[in-house]
């Protein structure tokens, strides 16, 4: 039996018991306490633009249909037939007006309402025996959207999404709202890695320290304009609300438009960002001189923004990726990696940005390849007996008394706290949320749904 309180106390000191990255009991606590009650990303509205469009996504083992109904409303429905429990929709995506269960042909409209029960009269005695009206596939207990991103929580009493996102919403806009048109997503690429889901989430929350070494090869081959190591340590590391992330320091002296041009955005896209971002968001770029890079929204959605050279002429082009660390078990994670781009961007930019993404991130990306090698190895090592004795030092940026080595940045336009230079601030921020959510109560027992009583 693990002692969760002792683990939590260690993590609070910035020392992480190594076995948490391969522990069955920890995974059970994460499933029942953390994922059963957190806001979890499922899909983006641009993936289902037209009525009838749907994608099927999971929260751990639970499959959901995310569909746009005939009225254009986005619905999230638990993908299990009310009758015998068959997975109603077994495709990953498509367009359908109805979903028909393959077992006995109970049929649901794309808004989840039960539309047909074969032999209703003969088998059930008609409406009197089984009233079809009001029956529907179980809706996600809580659902919310932000910048077109669709989140659900398995907790019917989850706090409103907007309140949950809090100050991190400020940073989300840099990735997911570069113009009033919003973003469009392509993908996801999906692949399974033998690594614990937390490692990637922590890495994106603030590990700028790994870049100079883990990613030395992409600097060696000149994929970037700047020498990477120095560029990285001048960046600010921020934490705000349920998220944390890294930034790059931009060259001194540039105005808002010049800084975006430096990152590789074409002039056609700059008015979109100028019009959509607040004064404070523009100030982060223009006055503070930082551009967002990797980030994680707790628990398992990460973002990345970077700007490689995509041709021999040295053309710098930025890209954005959203990625989800979908836990399969304590030792396996499914990675879902999307390419994201401003829907109003010129077509040729979209193509070049897609190329930049493919070279750097995703299943074949030259950055991501080396990351995953590390994460698989950590998970392997964490599974043994010796790992139960080892406390991993995650205290970078803290003095022995637990104070920050440097004060937070005063000249940083974004909300939350930001520090310049290397430090595991973001990872500790993420781990504090992990600590709190892995030890909170499970959902109250007795909350059940069935075909008879779940009418809404």
């Amino acid at each position, binding site marked *: 039996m693990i002692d969760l309180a002792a683990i939590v106390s260690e993590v609070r000191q910035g020392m992480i018991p190594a076995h948490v990255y391969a522990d069955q009991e920890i995974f059970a606590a994460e499933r029942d306490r953390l994922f059963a009650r957190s806001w979890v990303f499922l899909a983006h509205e641009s993936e289902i633009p037209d009525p009838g469009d749907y994608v099927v996504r999971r929260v751990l083992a639970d499959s959901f249909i995310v569909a746009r109904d005939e009225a254009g409303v986005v619905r999230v429905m638990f993908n299990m037939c009310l009758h015998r429990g068959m997975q109603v929709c077994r495709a990953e995506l498509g367009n359908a007006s109805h979903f028909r269960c393959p077992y006995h042909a109970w049929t649901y409209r794309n808004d989840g309402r039960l539309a047909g029960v074969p032999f209703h009269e003969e088998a059930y005695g008609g409406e009197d025996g089984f009233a079809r009206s009001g029956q529907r596939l179980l809706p996600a207990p809580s659902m919310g959207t932000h910048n077109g991103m669709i989140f659900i929580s398995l907790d019917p009493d989850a706090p409103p999404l907007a309140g949950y996102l809090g100050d991190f919403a400020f940073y989300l806009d840099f990735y997911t709202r570069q113009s009033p048109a919003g973003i469009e997503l392509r993908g996801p690429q999906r692949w*399974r*890695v033998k690594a614990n889901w937390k490692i990637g989430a922590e890495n994106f929350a603030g590990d700028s320290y790994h870049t100079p070494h883990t990613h*030395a*090869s992409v600097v060696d081959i000149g994929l970037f304009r700047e020498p990477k190591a120095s560029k990285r340590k001048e960046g600010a590391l921020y934490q705000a609300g349920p998220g944390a992330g890294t930034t790059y320091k931009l060259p001194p002296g540039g105005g808002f438009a010049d800084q975006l041009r430096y990152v590789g955005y074409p002039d056609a896209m700059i008015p979109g960002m100028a019009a959509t971002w607040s004064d404070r968001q523009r100030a982060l770029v223009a006055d503070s001189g930082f551009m967002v890079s990797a980030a994680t929204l707790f628990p398992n959605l990460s973002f990345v923004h970077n700007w490689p050279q995509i041709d021999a002429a040295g053309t710098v082009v930025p890209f954005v990726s959203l990625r989800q660390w979908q836990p399969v078990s304590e030792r396996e994670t499914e990675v879902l990696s999307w390419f994201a781009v401003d829907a109003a961007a010129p077509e040729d930019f979209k193509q070049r940005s897609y190329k930049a993404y493919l070279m750097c991130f995703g299943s074949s990306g030259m950055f991501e390849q080396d990351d995953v090698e590390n994460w698989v190895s950590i998970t392997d090592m964490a599974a043994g007996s010796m790992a139960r004795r080892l406390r991993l030092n995650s205290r970078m940026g803290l003095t022995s008394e637990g104070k920050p080595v440097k004060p937070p940045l005063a000249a940083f336009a974004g909300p939350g706290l930001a520090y310049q230079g290397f430090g595991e601030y973001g990872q500790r921020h993420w781990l504090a949320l992990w600590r709190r959510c892995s030890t909170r109560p499970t959902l109250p027992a007795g909350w059940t749904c069935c075909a008879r009583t779940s009418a809404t």
Partner: protein
Amino acid sequence: MPVRVTTARGAGFDSLAGMGHFDEDMYALRKRVQRLATDHAWTEDPPSRTRHFVTNVRTFRAAAGELRVQSALLLFRSRGDTREADLLSAGRTDLLRETADGLRLARREITVDESVLRTQNLAVFL
């Protein structure tokens, strides 16, 4: 190499529009090869032991001086001493072009047979 997806039989498509695992030009391919030749490509150092089983090869006449070649590919990839090996199954359609130095690969389309890849990355070529 498009991302394959599970779709209904009548859907009319089984890969994602506009998203691949690879979508390469000569610059991107060169960079990948250059990277593997550096001292810091950790994911392939120590290197994977790979074997490409190529079978069901069929060749078709294309434009003058060109051959279209279809084949089935099974990639066996073993990393380290303790991990389970990975398998990737795919179909390939190649365009071979005759040059002064013999046949050269001008284009390759890869149709992978899984929608969720069971390998940690594509640091190897298919």
